């Protein structure tokens, strides 16, 4: 029930699959993450410098990355819906719609501030630590603290 309540107030996806993943089947996500992490590092997307270039309009690079990622994503989702592609387990693919809240504006701006300061979104933080930038563990812990604090004061914030 808590799960459902949270769904209503948070646009984040609580996953659709009814199939319970065992620890072993979760390994496939680890492998996808691993390739994803390699792309992050090899394309230097996790570089603080790339993010500064993006926000200073000094390089097309990050716009190219995000733009082409979205283009591939849009085409993929379109094809999945059009041909009613099922999951490997034979389930119907379901994507929960995002509901609007003022959080997308206020929270979005706050994340934008943090993004330009740290040069990282949550994903790159994990990859940066992997490359040996150990102090980023502090950034990650602070991000976890930020998430926790949001959970604590959520009901007092405009949504």
């Amino acid at each position: 029930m808590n799960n459902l309540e949270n769904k209503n107030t948070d646009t984040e996806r609580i996953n659709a699959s009814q199939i319970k993943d065992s620890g072993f089947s979760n390994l496939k996500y680890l492998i996808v993450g691993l390739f994803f992490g390699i792309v992050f590092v090899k394309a230097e997307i996790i570089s603080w410098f790339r993010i500064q270039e993006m926000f200073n309009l000094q390089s097309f690079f990050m716009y190219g990355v995000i733009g082409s990622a979205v283009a591939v994503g849009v085409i993929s989702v379109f094809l999945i819906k059009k041909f009613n592609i099922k999951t490997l387990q034979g389930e119907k693919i379901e994507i929960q719609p995002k509901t609007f809240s003022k959080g997308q504006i206020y929270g979005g701006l706050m994340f934008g501030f943090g993004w330009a300061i740290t040069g990282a979104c949550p994903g790159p933080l994990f990859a940066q630590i992997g490359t040996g930038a150990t102090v980023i563990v502090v950034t990650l812990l602070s991000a976890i603290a930020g998430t926790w604090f949001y959970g604590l004061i959520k009901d007092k914030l405009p949504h």
Partner: protein
Amino acid sequence: MSLLEIIKEPWPWYVAGPLIGLTVPILLIIGNKSFGISSSLRHICAMCIPANIPFFKYDWKKESWNLFFVFGIFLGGVIAAYFLSNPNAVTIAPELSEQLAGYGITDHTGLVPSQLFSWESLFTLRGFIMIVVGGFLVGFGTRYAGGCTSGHAIMGLSNLQWPSLVATICFMIGGFVMALLILPYILSL
């Protein structure tokens, strides 16, 4: 050039972007999972410090795929850095290089500038703001917005969700305001 040498070079955007975009259908097809990374921070809170807060009282084990995914990203970082790393310094825009030199940031060897993000700098005001305050804003902001670059800008836009477009535009506005108007003051500290 051998294949390994090509892989070791920095990858262009038209290779990296589509590969990132492909994460969307891969996660959907292998397990009906919507791409999103900042949720992992929420699951870590639910797992370690729920503290009876309703927002963290849910079955995080059901979402544990997301934790495997981010652990994979960490491992990918390890592999890329130790086995596939580019022997040369990160090339950056000359204008940026000049700008940063004005703040004493001259070392471009790492992806993360060591003159800003290091254990020593953590105990300076500038370092504290960059590392701790910046991280807090990322964690608080993404959860308040209900997603980050992956969940909104890539997954949400892929599914043509207008709230995700609002979020993405706000991420960018926040980033521009910080980088152009506020960050120069922080870097001068």
